[in-house]
């Protein structure tokens, strides 16, 4: 597992305690003292999940969440909340946060949820990687090949495609063969399934 749990909390004790907790369950953890500190450290490649205190000096947890979303960060986020912050946490959930945990929390339960989040992230990352290859293959198609492919997926016969595009059937077959080759599939059904995952 390459992902880490990224703990963002301005309370040093909480940070330290959580770090110790995750370490005790062999979950790799990294701690950040402020939202700004995390933003600085964040990059697209960062994997794992985010454990974010909703209430902090300076930039709050929610603000950081919004900023990360804007920048395309797709790390699963678990909010740490006090009991008064539940409404804020709910709205964060609606915006796409993964979960929230109310303080004081059941620690091993929290660790379990973090582990789930990490797994989810890993899976998502793997899927993302597949999709990225399909997109790369699609990018190699010429415009005409793309047109032909769309019509093939729509289930049209070569003859109909030739008529639609005003080209000969022979040319359609050549293009079709190129599409299959470039996309790494053997049949139209396979092609359709591949594209459906995007």
């Amino acid at each position: 597992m390459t992902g880490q749990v990224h703990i963002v909390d301005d309370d040093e004790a909480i940070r330290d305690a959580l770090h110790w907790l995750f370490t005790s369950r062999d979950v790799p953890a990294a701690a950040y003292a402020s939202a700004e500190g995390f933003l600085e450290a964040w990059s697209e490649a960062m994997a794992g999940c985010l454990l974010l205190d909703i209430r902090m000096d300076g930039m709050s947890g929610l603000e950081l969440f919004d900023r990360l979303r804007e920048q395309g960060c797709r790390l699963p986020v678990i909010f740490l909340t006090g009991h008064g912050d539940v409404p804020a946490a709910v709205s964060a959930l609606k915006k796409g946060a993964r979960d929230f945990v109310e303080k004081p929390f059941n620690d091993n339960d929290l660790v379990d949820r973090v582990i789930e989040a990490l797994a989810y992230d890993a899976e998502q990352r793997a899927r993302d990687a597949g999709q990225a290859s399909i997109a790369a293959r699609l990018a190699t198609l010429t415009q005409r090949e793309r047109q032909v492919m769309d019509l093939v997926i729509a289930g049209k016969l070569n003859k109909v495609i030739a008529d639609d595009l005003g080209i000969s059937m022979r040319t359609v077959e050549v293009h079709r063969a190129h599409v299959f080759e470039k996309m790494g599939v053997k049949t139209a059904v396979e092609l359709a399934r591949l594209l459906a995952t995007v």
Partner: protein
Amino acid sequence: MVPDCPGDQHSTAPAGAYDQPKIPRSGAAVTVSWGHRGAVHAMPIVAMALVVVLLGVFLWVLDRNEREEEAHALIKDILWVEQNLRFQLASDVDKLEHLAETLGREDGDALSLAPVMRHIVTTNPAVEQILWLDANGRTVAAMPPAGGDGDGAQPRGEAFKVARSLGRRVYGAPYRLPQRGAGFDVVIPVFGPRGFAGALAGVFSIDAILANHVPWWFAQRYQLEVVNADGTVLGAKSHLAVTEPRRSHTLAYDPPGRGLTLVATVYQTDANATRNILVAAIFALTASALWSLWAVRRHIRGRVTAERALREEHAFRKAMEDSLTAGMRARDMEGRITYVNPAFCRMVGWPAEELIGRGPPMPYWPPEEMGRCEDVFRSVLAGRAPPEGFELRFMRRDGERFDALVYEAPLIDAGGRQTGWMASVLDITERKRAADLARQQQEKLQQTARLITMGEMASTLAHELNQPLSAIASYSTGCLNRLHAGPCSAAELAPPLEKLASQARRAGQIIRRVHDFVRKREPNVAAVNLTAVIEDSVALMASDARKHGVRITVQGDERAPPVLADRILVQQVLLNLMRNAIEAMAQTPREARELGVAVEVHEDSVTTRIRDRGCGIAPEVAERLFSPFFTTKTEGMGMGLNICRSIVEHHKGRLWYDVHPGGNGSGGTTFQFTLPTAGKGEA
């Protein structure tokens, strides 16, 4: 007993006895004395008038008597004088008749009789001249020899004729004498052996008669004149003019007759002048007596006016003293009571007559306070009574205790000498009770306000408490995880356990702060380290501030001396002001939300400033900012600032605010309050 009902005491018998209104009685006395005074005033005037009238009557009677007496004396005197003159004249005429007889016998030898005639003339001053007339009336001889005849020839001739024909002596009409004055002749016929031989004429001078035959005492009292029938004055004893015609008496002067009269006029006598002086003196005395009476009366009237004014003033002061609700008590230099007013009597329950003259120990000193009362008493007599008054616990007659506020001042008489001590005594039992009640209510209110503050902060405090609790849970779970995973070293577990303990302390700290703050307690004013109070308050507010995204900056002053205050109350003020400041910044951009707490040290006070960058205070809000139950918050009770101010003022400090214009983080409000620094002795 109904000790709480002051009205009850008015109706009790002893209270009523010395509470009687005395003004009407003295008013009645005024009218009575006014009736007396009228009679008293009238009497001397009536007496004086009577004296004057009687004196006048007396003088008038005296004058009348005197006049009568004078008239009697005048008549008596003039009769006497007339008699005397007549006698003298008769005596002189007798001598002349004797001579005439002699002449008749000697047969007309006048010369031989010359010495006799001379003798007569010289010895009888009234006889001016003696003439010997022959039978025809011619003058034969004269003694003294005739110088001139004057006007005498004609009357003498007439007299001669009458005498010749009658054959007896005849008085001639008066005429003017050649030398001086007037005179008359007495013609005496001389009969010789041959019958009528001539006549002897004696010339009498009226002046000489008057001069020689009227005595001096008469001349002194009267003016005597001989007046002719036609009113001509022929001679007078005194030629002094009678200035003022007074009483006179006229008597016929006969002989010589011929219409001559004697007129005696009374001179102004010395006795008269004396009497006049006496009368004048009496009148002067009367006048002066009247004047002095008037002056005395005026003086009395002045006195009466002054007395009335004094009486009114006295009655007013008495009424004032009687209606005073404050007790008044005067004591002499030895501390004995010399005066008490009804209010004081009502207060202590003893009547005035039982209190006056009493020295210490006073009956109203409660036994348990005897020592303190005596101390205060001695210090008052020593002149060390505090001018701001002192409080004592006194005892009513029925044994009920009451708190009295006593002001003592020296009693200075009109001569500027101190004669004792004057005290005003106020029964402050009710006031004290009310003040105690108000203080208790204020305390309760402050307590409630603290609970409300804490209630409003509950969620943030819960969060605050959650932090260490969460950390504790995490540390302990982590340790358990480690233990479950298999053997592990103490070195590995010790640090997290230590941290766990410190977080437990942190939680305890928070709970202690909250507990300190809301605990019901007596106010405890002492030297307080303001910086520590601010730190505590900031710690309590920290999570609230974080929730609102507010940064708190504290700018303390290391040199800040301790302030004289109640720590919790000051903290309440700080929390309230900080909460207000945080909430005022709800509309401020997040990055500008800053709450500044600053301390500034002055000479004898410390100013604490709480500055926000919020929306400021609208003028319509400012007006009612400190009013109770005024709030701009939906959940607020509106007691915060009101309580803050009363707390600060209770500490002899001041709470105020300044609004900084400008929006969105540049403006805001600064609330400031001062607290007195603790003196060096208390620090």
